[in-house]
């Protein structure tokens, strides 16, 4: 295993890029490529990362870089890898797509590549909304979050749907490797990228990447907020290797989801009732992942009657 000290000095994603101060995407990209190394070729679809990492004729990437459209990361890295194989080059094609580009618009292309078990690495930079175009909701946006398309009004307050379980969808393709990562857990992060690098077949790295304006938070807290996400159960660090799931880091004591929410302006409007709903969702997830009930003072609250995914709006539209 590599430790922080053993990482190479060289920046393969150079300074001078134009991400917002404190950007969790930039932080994750820099360290991922640091571990993946020079023999990597990168594809980035439409997203923040394509804009702040490359503005013609400038680029931050010091490895070959390719960009076409938004929805085709799976197809593009497939093609790149095929070309390298044909030319006899030992290069890994790696796609860095956003959550919009993975949960929603790029899902079919990713699914195709996963189904064919292409020998590539797919990285999802999950900042939980379409940030590049000014913060619209995606399938990765959590319950309650404000975005410009899930505004906070008198009737409806923020996103009404729960974050889609992308991990299950990806793992259901029975690929060699799926893992969730957090930049606030460096050793786990490095180990997983390193592991993915050395496996053959379709590898999926799901990175939790805070966004400063999108989450309305202090830029200094990027790392802190990812730690809080893991401690509260909003984000779980695990991996699925050839169908076998393993938790890679379990927080000592479950923290209440409120602690996590209150660090971010996008959640600050949430009513006690909505926070409770989200807490129940987290507790259920905690139970599924860790095979144990969450902390008693956090999780032993009376659950609301309805199933977690059925909200009032849903009822209004579809009946009970």
């Amino acid at each position, binding site marked *: 295993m590599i430790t922080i000290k053993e990482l190479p000095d060289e920046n393969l994603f150079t300074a*001078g890029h*134009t991400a*917002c101060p404190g*950007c969790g995407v*930039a932080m994750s990209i820099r360290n991922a490529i640091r571990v993946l190394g020079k023999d990597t070729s990168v594809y980035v679809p439409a997203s923040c990362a394509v804009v702040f990492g490359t503005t013609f004729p400038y680029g931050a990437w010091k490895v070959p870089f390719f960009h076409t459209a938004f929805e085709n990361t799976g197809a593009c890295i497939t093609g790149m890898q095929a070309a390298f194989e044909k030319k006899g080059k030992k290069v890994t094609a790696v796609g860095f797509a956003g959550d919009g580009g993975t949960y929603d618009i790029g899902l079919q292309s990713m699914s195709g590549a996963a189904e064919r078990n292409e020998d590539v690495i797919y990285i999802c930079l999950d900042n939980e909304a379409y940030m590049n175009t000014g913060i619209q909701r995606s399938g990765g946006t959590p319950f309650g979050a404000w975005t410009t398309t899930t505004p906070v009004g008198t009737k409806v307050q923020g996103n009404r749907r729960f974050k889609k379980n992308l991990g299950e969808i990806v793992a259901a393709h029975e690929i060699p490797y799926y893992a969730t990562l957090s930049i606030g857990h460096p050793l786990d992060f490095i180990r997983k990228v390193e592991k993915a690098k050395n496996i053959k077949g379709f590898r999926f790295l799901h990175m939790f990447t805070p966004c400063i304006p999108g989450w309305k938070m202090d830029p200094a807290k*990027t*790392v802190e907020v990812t730690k809080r996400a893991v401690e509260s159960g909003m984000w779980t660090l695990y991996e699925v290797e050839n169908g076998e799931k393993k938790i890679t880091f379990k927080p000592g004591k479950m923290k209440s989801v409120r602690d996590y929410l209150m660090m971010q302006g996008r959640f600050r409007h949430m009513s006690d009732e909505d926070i409770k709903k989200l807490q129940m969702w987290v507790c259920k997830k905690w139970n599924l992942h860790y095979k144990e009930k969450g902390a008693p003072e956090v999780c032993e609250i009376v659950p609301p009657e309805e199933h977690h995914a059925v909200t009032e709006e849903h009822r209004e539209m579809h009946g009970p």
Partner: protein
Amino acid sequence: MFEVRFHGRGGQGAVMAAEALAEAAVIEGNYAVAFPFFGAERRGAPVLAFTRIDSKKIYSKTQVYSPDCVVVLDDSLLDTIDVVAGLKPGGSVVINSRDKPEDIDLGISVKTAVVDATSVALEILKAPITNTAILGAFARATGVIKLESLEEAIKRRFGEKLGEKVAERNSLAARTAYGRTVIGTSKGIKKLESKKQWLPKYQELPAGGSLIEGKTEAGLIGPGSFIENKVSGWATFRPLRDREKCTMCLLCWFYCPEGTIVRISDRGDLMTNYDYCKGCGVCANECPVDAIKMVRARA
């Protein structure tokens, strides 16, 4: 017609300032328009916004190329941008700066008003958002709008979006800055070379826009060339590391999103290159032994 060009950085609220100014003009019975220049800019990157004010209807839809007044929300922009480009004769400049007008070199000698809007904002709003403070200085320097109309406009604009309390504080920021504004004349010594751009003929453009590492008259292009882009001006604060306290755990080096904390392995040391530090504060927040302090970037 009175035309204003705002130079700011993403997140400083230049667009909101342009809008509030237009609203103040409308309150006084004039016509006004305000709009931003849209680019791919993130927080901290240079941005433009414009306001036009007239007693008649305004049909002009272009950017403002020859302003009557230029408003600069961040004086670090003066190092890289020719803010007075196209300024009308007799025009004026309003700058957020701690310097006196006489000490500011704009390349031409013009009427210049300064106010330390960042300090006003930090004092009153507890955040370095200088857009309302600088409008106070604008009102004082140009007399184009009255302070009362400006305060009314700020209350309307901000009240709607952010609530009464925030609106009230922003209005106070404008009033405070109005009082602290110093008016004088700038120096006109430096020659600001317009930033060289790589402008290849279409025959020289590589197929598909694909670039290899290269150097042109305008500097590096292609892979890794973003180091041409110095971003220190984005920072309000910057980190100072106490070598005595530092245990070389390397967490700051790992986390820095810019990669501007450089590790010099053979000397077992770290060095922060401020050219690329945006002052996010992550390094200071994460240092386990509190060896890093954030200080104001331009003292």
